[in-house]
Structure formats: C-alpha cells, structure tokens
C-alpha cells in the first residue's frame, strides 16, 4: 500500500527572481577594439555576477541580453540563470537604434515575461554614441510598461562620443550619473560594477535610505579612481 509522500523538498518553493536586462550598443562605431573589449568585459563580469547572486541566496538572478545597432535583437532572449549563462561574442555594425532597444525592453517589463515573485528589474544600458532613432519614444514606452517605472536603470558610457545627456535621461535620478569608461580596463570595471552592484544593493548592509543612494555613493567612488586616458 503506497502512501503519497508530500513534496517537502524546498525545491518545490518557487523563488523570487531578480531580472537583469543588458542592452549593449553594437553600432558600427563599436567595431574593432571596442566590441572586443565589451565582449571581454562581459566574460569577466559573469563570474562576478555569479558571486553577487550567491550573496543573495533567496533570489535567482536571471539575465537577458539585447544587442542594438540597426534595429534591436535579443542576444540572450530567454531569462537565463546566471550560473547557466555562457557568453557568445557580439559583432558590431550598423546604426544606433537605442529607441528601438528601449521598446524591445518595454515589451518584456511585465508579469507575462517576468512571471511570479520579482525584485525590481535592473536594466543596464551600454552605449558609445548618440541614438540615431527616436530615443524619446522608446523611453516613453519603457516608462509606460507595467514594471518600467520600478526598474533600476544603470548606464555605461563608452569613450568620449557617448551621449551623456541621453544616458542621464535614461537613468533619471539626480544623484546617480552614467559611468564613464575611457579605456578597456575602465570598461571591464564599469561593466562589472553595473552588473553586480545593483544586485548587491538588495542584499548588503546599508547606511543609505534606498538602493539608488548606495549606488550613487559607490559610483562616486568609481569616478575618483577612473583613468583619464582617452580611448
């Protein structure tokens, strides 16, 4: 006589998720050493992201990657557990359709694409130039998405031609500015920062009233040590 055993393994418990969306500029101006550096930076960031995720053991860190150039395409379309994330290199070429990228992200910032219990999603926007399409329309769509206003937005500006003002409008926080990467080493550090510190901000000890102020303070520390070498 078999008696059904209840499934008391904690595997039965659905865990809260932290969704990270990386939107990476792959326009023509990224061709050459910049895209190579970006690919390297992403490979270097993944183990750091895994470590940051391990610090927050109640949460599953899920990653999607979007590339934008002429149009926007999902590079990692399905939310992927950071432990399972394997990097395949991005190639550069085309325009800078940042507005379209924001629309693509807007489409997934909802309970259908981010089902179940979630932390505020994190969006990391990395760009070396100016949008060649309608940024405002994309931004509007993003903020109108169900989870758009609640997403934590972080931006990394690559080199001297990045449109800082646009990236500031993307972040839309008075104290929290885009991180600038002026050489390959900077880029590795900024990508690591942008993909891990927002994750850590939800699990760390803190003196600050909200995660963004923690980020702003830490970003300030980054700036002081930033290299002045121009790309």
């Amino acid at each position: 006589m078999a008696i059904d055993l209840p499934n008391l393994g904690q595997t039965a418990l659905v865990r809260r998720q932290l969704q990270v969306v990386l939107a990476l500029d792959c326009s023509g101006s990224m061709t050459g050493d910049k895209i190579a550096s970006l690919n390297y930076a992403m490979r270097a960031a993944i183990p750091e992201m895994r470590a940051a995720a391990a610090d927050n053991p109640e949460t599953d860190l899920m990653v999607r990657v979007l590339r934008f150039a002429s149009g926007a395409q999902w590079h990692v379309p399905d939310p992927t557990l950071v432990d399972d994330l394997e990097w395949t290199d991005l190639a550069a070429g085309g325009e800078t359709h940042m507005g379209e990228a924001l629309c693509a992200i807007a489409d997934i910032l909802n309970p259908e694409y981010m089902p179940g219990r979630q932390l505020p999603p994190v969006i990391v926007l990395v760009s070396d130039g100016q949008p060649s399409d309608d940024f405002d329309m994309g931004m509007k769509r993003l903020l109108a998405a169900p989870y758009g206003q609640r997403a934590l937005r972080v931006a990394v500006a690559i080199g001297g031609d990045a449109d800082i003002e646009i990236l500031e409008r993307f972040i839309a926080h008075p104290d929290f500015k885009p991180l600038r990467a002026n050489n390959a080493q900077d880029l590795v550090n900024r990508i690591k920062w942008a993909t891990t510190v927002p994750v850590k901000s939800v699990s760390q000890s803190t003196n600050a009233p909200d995660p963004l102020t923690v980020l702003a303070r830490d970003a300030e520390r980054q700036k002081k040590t930033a290299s002045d070498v121009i790309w």
Partner: protein
Amino acid sequence: MSGTTNDELPRGTPLMTVHGRRRGHVENLLGAGGQGAVYAVAIEGTRFALKWYHDDIASIDRTLRARLSRAIGIGPPTDRFLWPIDLVEIAGSKSFGYVMPLRDGDYNGMRDLIARPPKRIDLPLSKRVMVCLRIAQNFLELHARGFCYQDINFGNIFFHTQSGDILICDNDNVDIDGMDAAVFGTRKFMAPEVVRRETLPSTKTDLFSMAVLFFYIIHSWHPLDGRRENEVQIMDSSAETSLYGRNPVFIFDPQDQSNGPVPGVHDAIVARWNSLTPAIRSLFTRSFTVGLRQPGERVLEPEWRTNFARMVDGCVSCQHCGYDQAPRQGVKGQTLMPTVCVACGRPMALPPVLLIGRDTITLGPGIGIAIHHIDPDRPVDFTTMAGIVEEHPTNKGVWGLRNMTRNAWKVTLSDGSAVTVDPGRAVRIMDETTVDFGRRVGRFVTGDTASVPRERPR
C-alpha cells in the same frame, strides 16, 4: 565589487600594526564588500586576515577607529569571534584597517543553507539546532559584556557541517550598547523599528536579528514571509517597508492569519515548523508576535540556549520517509507521546530515549550523554560526556549506558529492584528503568522498539 576599485592593495604591499609596531605584507585579496576589502597578510611569518577600508569610510563612519581600538583593548568575548587584533596602517595611504584571525576554510556560510539547490547544504535538523545553540551561546557572551553586534545576518556567521560549531566574522560594527550605530543593518534582518528608521541598532535589535537568523537556519526561510509576501509581485522598497517594518506579521502568528502559510506554497516550511519542540515554537512565536512590537519583550539568549540544548539530543527521523523531527513529550516529561510523522503522517516507531526532566535524549550506538544533562550546574557542553551507549562486549544486541562519571549511579529496575552502577560500569537500556545520576533522575523509555538503539541522525 572585487577588482572594480583601483585602490586594491598589490601583493607585497608593506604594512605596520599600530599598537604592536609589527611589520608585514599583503599576500592576496580574499574578498570585497561595501566598506572595503579583506586580504590575506603575513605578519612576522604568521598569516592573518586584513580588513582594509575604502579611503572615504573613515569620513562616513566617524567612530570606526575608536570603536576598533576599544574592541582590540577589550579582546574577543569567545574564541569563536574573529575579533580585531590590531589596527594596521600602510605608508602613503590615508586609509587604515585591522588584522584578525584567518577564517578556517572548513566553515561554510549561512547562505549555503538557503542557496538554490543543488548548491544548498541540507543539514540534519539536530545539526541546525546545534548551530543555533552555538550562536546563542556566543552572542550571550558578547551581549553580557555590554557590546552589541548591530548587523547580524547570514553573511557574517559561518558554520562547520560536522561539528555544528560556528565562527563570527565582521566584528567591526561591534559597539558599546547605546552608542550611535554605524549601520542600520541588512535587508530582512533589521528589527521593524530599524526598518522604520525610528531607532538605531542596539542589543534589543540584535535579539530580533538573531531570532530571524535562527528561523532561517532551521527553515531556510524568513519568518515574516507568508501569504502577503507571496502576493507581492515586485518587492520594491515600499513593499519591503510594509512587510518587515510597518505591518510585519509572523507566518505562524496564532492570532493573525493574514500572513499565514499558503497551502501548496509553504508546505515545506509548515512541516519544518511542526517538527520543532513546543518550547522552540513558543520562543519563535514570542519573538515574532509581541517581540515585533515590544523590543523589551524579545527572547534573550539563555532561553534560546536552554531550549536548543534540549532539542539537539532529541531529534529522530521517521522510519518511513526519513524526515527529522522532535518527538513529543507527555505530561511532565515522564513519557513520550505516540507520534505521527509531521511529514508523511504515518505512525513513527520511536527509538529508545533517556528522559531527564524536560530533556529528551535519543539513544543510539556510540551516542554520548553530555554532562550538562545530569548536572544542572554544568554549562551546556557537548564535549564532556557523562555516559556513552555501548553494546555488551559478549552478548550482542544488548545495549547499555556506560557510566563515565566519577560517581556511582543508583538504578531502579521496572520490577522495583535496585542496583548500583559504579564508575566505568554500564547499565542495560530497558524500558521503565530509572537512573539516579546524583543531581538529576532519568528514565529509559524504549516503547515497543525493544532495547535495540537505532542510528540517530547526526
């Protein structure tokens, strides 16, 4: 953010301790956090850990240096604290740090109990309870010295999976109770009044954080995460402030079920809760009902210690499904109640036990009876044994309890006859046999399992 700051100390950087004036050098980076980084260093041939602060920390945390100096002067409450040994300076740097003992690599972080399977460490219940007991014992020593820890969370306490022993790291926030705290604490560990920013951490808020940690260690789950948490789609700061600050409700609040367990979602948490002794459940209930609102009513370490110590030796596992649980004691602790398994619901055959007062000790081959069970004046100590369960040397299948004390035990058998068990001798484990250990009297209860002990979950 290891590797992201350019102020990382290179290997070989020379350093000097402030009080001892000893010279050493940096070996390698061990880890990094919000306030600084931890390195392995060598000082006159001995390896230590160095916590080295970011340049701006001293201006943000103005009492840090004085706090560390005081802690160094007073010394560690127990050897389980990786306590600051001396301040450290590095020529040409505006910042400073401190050295402490290196953490033994055999210890695991508390996060491993909560991590996503298969990374999760699935510790037996008795071992989880042992870890809680060790934490209560050590924080008792810290608090008794007038210190508060300020930031108890699963990142700064480590455990040994075999012994259940612990190590307490990150002691740089430790301060005299009543001083202005340097941190608010860690998400989900802060007391509600700290979440609401009405007060700074103190010994009373430590007691709350410690109770949260105990609940996490035993359930791998947070005590305030029930129905309401399950319904929060996006856990933003306003939802967090409500759940853990403004309107916190215990998942097992007997009066208020608004945040109770959701069938099909929290079943594992409910089974674990039901597997605990009534005494431990009542301490959790006090901590997360009245203790949420009245900091003065929070459970102090001695009560936790006593009841965890009672539970450590009393866990059994179901012979059908293997689930660990505490058997129920009858009236006045004189018997064991018939028990159905809290996980599979089938009747459990209980192993032989020794009942001493309210202590239940399950007996199995090689199991020791810790000295504090038979002598109420002895501190809780699982290394000194008063007796050990052994098989008869020639008569296989006959088990007894060997007297390892220096005093004779007076034994009364079920037929009323009396015998004396001198030091070094053993008494057979038989139902309804009472043993007068001198200070306390115990009773063997073997139920219908005869007198053959089973392995206890270890």
